[in-house]
């Protein structure tokens, strides 16, 4: 894990496919790329078999661009749609058994710290709502209670998409799905509150119809996890197949859902605010200058 792993081995350059050469020469490694430069640099993410128009795909694409040090990042995933794309990026990917991802990431991030000391190596878990809130629930919660220093991202499409439409804990009450024909009887789980209770240093909700916000929350979450503690991002990433959303309406749906139940929220612990300010020069947590505070009198 360093810039070396994306270089060509001596003598092999001319045998590598164009996409690989582009990635080495014009990829995101060792420099800063941003969402506003999309379309002008070679991305670490390659082609993959996720469905056309899938919002989860867009979110994963944005998230990978937002990683602060892609050459020093390992992603961890599990069964579910997202791994089909996450595994097709020029970033090492570890596939945990369904539900094991936060246990795997705990060991991995501890091991990397033993091996590399203070040099930051970022571990980012991306798993579906079923993988995170149902099958992986106890490993997710325990990793947070243990304050394991890595980022957990829930790709919340509010359904088990990969297996054809079973309800998950994150499905909304009343939703009728192909394999939940009577409609869900229970409320959507409040994983955000649980993340806060379990002591996460950063908790945010985000929807991919705001690419720059996705970029900003991913960056903060990954940086905070380097030293302060667990970080959690819950992203609404609709499944256009199981919810029958026409693909050209996927962003319209994201907007509607954002207004309904996925407004942007961000919790940053005091320690994390101080860390981002002092270590990475964030200005947003500094006390506001007196003149900027509206006069309440």
């Amino acid at each position, binding site marked *: 894990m360093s810039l070396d792993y994306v270089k060509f081995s001596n003598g092999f350059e001319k045998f590598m496919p164009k*996409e690989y050469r582009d990635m080495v020469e014009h990829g995101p490694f060792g420099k800063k790329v941003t969402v506003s430069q999309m379309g002008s640099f070679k991305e670490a993410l390659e082609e993959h078999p996720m469905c056309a*128009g899938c919002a989860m795909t867009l979110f994963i694409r944005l998230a990978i661009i937002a990683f602060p040090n892609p050459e020093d990042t390992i992603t961890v995933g599990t069964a579910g749609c997202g791994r089909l794309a996450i595994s097709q990026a020029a970033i090492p990917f570890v596939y945990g058994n369904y539900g094991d991802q936060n246990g795997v990431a705990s060991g991995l991030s501890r091991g990397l710290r033993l091996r590399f000391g203070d040099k930051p190596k970022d571990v980012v878990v991306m798993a579906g709502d079923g993988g995170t809130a149902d099958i992986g629930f106890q490993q997710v919660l325990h990793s947070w209670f243990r304050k394991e220093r890595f980022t957990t991202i829930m790709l919340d499409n509010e359904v088990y998409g990969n297996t054809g439409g079973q309800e998950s804990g994150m499905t909304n009450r009343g939703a009728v799905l192909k394999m939940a024909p009577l409609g869900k009887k229970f409320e959507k789980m409040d994983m955000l509150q649980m993340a806060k209770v379990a002591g996460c240093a950063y908790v945010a909700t985000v929807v991919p119809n705001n690419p720059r916000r996705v970029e900003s929350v991913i960056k903060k979450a990954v940086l905070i996890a380097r030293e302060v503690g667990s970080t959690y991002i819950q992203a609404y990433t609709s499944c256009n197949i199981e919810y029958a959303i026409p693909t050209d309406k996927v*962003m319209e749906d994201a907007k509607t859902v954002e207004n309904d139940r996925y407004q942007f929220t961000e919790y940053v612990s005091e320690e994390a605010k101080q860390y981002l300010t002092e270590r990475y020069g964030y200005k947003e947590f500094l006390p506001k200058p007196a003149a900027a505070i509206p006069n309440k009198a």
Partner: protein
Amino acid sequence: MYLVANVNVEICASKSCKLCTQYCPEANTIQYSEEMGKEQGFKYGSAYIAVDRCKGCALCVWVCDSLAKNNAIKMTMIDQLPKAALTDNITYGDKSTTAVLASPMVG
């Protein structure tokens, strides 16, 4: 036959909004070229589609029509495009890309 996105350079190159590039779910599919518009005498560069990567979802059409309000992207049958960009013919530069357009049809 199948549909792929197609950008009207004339419209796009007079806008410089680059919005659709941030919304396509597929990586390196909507690309941006500073030259593409300027070469034809327009003010800005233009977005264009690497049609071999486009999955035909039309999400970008919604973005250009409803967010950017520019109506520059139309879904088009791939055999109706005399010339298009393909990944093999795209060159990356420092801040932009260039594409040599060719027939997307094989043979």
